[in-house]
């Protein structure tokens, strides 16, 4: 199957998201279906795989960090997206929250995908601490909306991905490379399955309404590589960022032709032991000697929503709604003076810490 007709599409949103998407594409020698979406015309590397949004509104100069402007830009141009989605059944969206286009356009794109019946898996970075509280707050405000709009969402805090010894530019570059590496592993798992197949249909069924998840990956080599991979994953901070208990596990093991059954068993047993032996567990392999020669990569996705499990129960915590209401102010806009240093209360994308009468535009007639 050619990349152009693949049912899987990789979408990079905003400048950072597009960089990550192009990084994944390079790892595949350009042989995957890719779309970069941005408000900044300068980030378009090739016309065929690039969609400029908000052209009339922003003149291709970017959203300047304005989430609302980027969201409106995406609304303006959303019909242009449809032409790029022919035959797509699963979209993997990479984006960076905290900025304008990533924070604003991602939600509109995800909603469009849902409207068209396309499942979406989102890998979204949240800002470094050094980027400031405003960006962090903006990202936090958008996270719940992304979670609502996507089939499955993985939030990746940049501070936990990249060590503190790099300078700012190097940290950014390393973060982009790291995430691209992780998404590439996931992509290989679906597109180049080995003896244990984890195909797109199986993944689609698993991620439909899966909600928020946790994502981590490692690459190791050496005689005890399976145990080392499990040890590093179990101690990974990326898998410790929990908002709810784990309800389903997806595990991918990628190696060359030297992958031993005992290694596969060690990885599966170790992950299940660490995160719950009773929890539904899916495993897939990639056997690609040319890429992994001597190395072992393990990708773990922990799904937190109960909807990831096939038999939902009554009174299930974490049931999710579609079609989040739009906030007149938008999340993270303005501040409620008493609560501005606390974790915000977000409900259907609205920041409930802000005075209700303001958000509802109620005239008080003082």
């Amino acid at each position, binding site marked *: 199957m050619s990349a152009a007709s693949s049912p899987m599409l990789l979408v990079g949103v905003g400048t950072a998201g597009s960089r990550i998407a192009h990084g994944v594409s390079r790892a595949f020698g350009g042989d995957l279906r890719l779309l970069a979406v941005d408000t900044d015309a300068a980030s378009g590397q090739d016309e065929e795989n690039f969609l400029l949004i908000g052209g009339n509104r922003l003149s291709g100069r970017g959203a300047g960090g304005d989430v609302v402007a980027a969201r409106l830009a995406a609304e303006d141009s959303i019909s242009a997206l449809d032409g790029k989605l022919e035959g797509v059944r699963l979209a993997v969206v990479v984006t960076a929250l905290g900025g304008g286009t990533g924070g604003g356009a991602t939600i509109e794109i995800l909603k469009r995908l849902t409207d068209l019946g396309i499942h979406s898996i989102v890998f979204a970075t949240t800002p470094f601490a050094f980027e400031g509280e405003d960006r962090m707050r903006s990202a936090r405000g958008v996270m719940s909306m992304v979670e609502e709009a996507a089939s499955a969402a993985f939030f990746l805090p940049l501070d936990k991905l990249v060590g503190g010894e790099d300078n700012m530019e190097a940290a950014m570059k390393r973060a982009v490379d790291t995430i691209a590496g992780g998404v590439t592993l996931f992509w290989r798992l679906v597109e180049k399955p080995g003896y244990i197949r984890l195909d797109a249909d199986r993944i689609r069924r698993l991620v439909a309404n899966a909600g928020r998840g946790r994502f981590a990956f490692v690459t190791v080599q050496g005689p005890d590589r399976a145990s080392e991979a499990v040890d590093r994953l179990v101690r990974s901070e990326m898998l410790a960022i929990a908002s709810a208990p784990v309800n389903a596990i997806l595990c991918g093991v990628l190696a060359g032709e030297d992958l031993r059954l005992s290694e596969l068993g060690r990885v599966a047993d170790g992950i299940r032991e660490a995160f719950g032996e009773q929890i539904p567990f899916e495993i897939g392999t990639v056997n690609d000697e040319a890429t992994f020669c001597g190395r072992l990569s393990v990708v773990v996705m922990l799904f937190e929503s109960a909807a990831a499990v096939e038999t939902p129960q009554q009174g299930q915590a974490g049931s999710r709604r579609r079609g989040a209401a739009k906030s007149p102010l938008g999340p993270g806009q303005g501040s409620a003076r008493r609560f501005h240093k606390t974790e*915000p209360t977000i409900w259907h994308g609205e920041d409930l810490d802000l005075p209700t009468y303001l958000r509802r535009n109620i005239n008080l*007639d003082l």
Partner: protein
Amino acid sequence: MSKIHAALEIGTSRTVLAVGETQAGGRMKILSHAEIPSSGVRKSQIIDISQATQSIRSVLREIEAKQDSTGGNVEIHNALLVVSGQHIHVANAEGNAVVAGGRVGDAEIMEAARRSREMPIPKGRELLDIVDQDYQIDSLVGITSPKGMSGRMLRLNTLQIHASSDRIQDARTAAEGARLEISEPVFAATCTADAVLEEHERRNGVLVLDLGGGSTGYAAYCDGYLAAAGVVGVGGDHVTNDIAYAFQTTNAQAERLKTDEASAVIGQYTTDNARVRLTGSSALMESRAISRRALDTVVNARLKELFTVIRETLEEADLIHRLHAGVVIAGGGAGMRDLESLAELELGLGVRRGRPLQVDGLEDVSDPWAFATISGALLYSQRASGTDKSFLGDIIGRFFK
């Protein structure tokens, strides 16, 4: 069984400490209680440990002073911690057991219970409670007593209630600074339910709302068991903040307007042009007056939204139509004027204020619903000490003067 019990609540608006005793016949009596306005707490979470410690020291001193004046004789070393806030999560869990021989016996019931207790909770979380719900045998659901029934697989459905370990540790640290040790954290909303509910209400379906300063806890019971619970990060403090924001007042003025003047229902006690005069330290401040209708509008909008969040949450869980016994509202925020009327309107259910039913010693209190949670915590402690004789026995000492 230990007869003396203590519970501490570090709330957004107030810090409360209560000491109770199991009387002859098993009923709980509150021997002493103290409350002071909290410092260093926002949205039910400690943001300044030294200030929170100071608040705990103050309630301990107040309890001691009260005992000095009444000849009391209890010294508190240790207390249960009442926990609230939106860091609390409630998740479904289960325990399964293969039914050997095709008929459910005690062994399978115990195995299902044991396995449900082994379900992991996420890292960084501390378990507050595991609440048993109902049983399922194969595809047959909603079983309350499975013993003797036939089938292949028994499942016990439970709710795991867990909270951020860091937030609980902050409270422990604050308490330790005041030389008070925390024995166990407990969930505020279920404590409130323990204190205010009648057994028949749990069977018929009832919602308990614990309207605190920084957050609102809820616990919905159907068929006698806890069907859903959680916390919404909105409380009475949000009402105060909205008033302060709308009318440019201090928080103290806004708090007074909320408790003394405002109504949850617009136009209930007022004409369109009625004004409310502010109180303040300066003549300029005292000369200001605000529209009573506008004040009610601000309060109404906030509370209406809170009830909408609760209603939609229960609708999603398919529970609201099962709450035949209505709603019981308690907590420090439950005293707001016309709150019951608004709740009835927005939730479409009968509403009453919840006063602690199972405890004595609060007869002199004018707002008993504000002591429902702490009373429930004492009842929890009493129950726990009955099941585990070592519980609290070594940590609360009684000294006769």
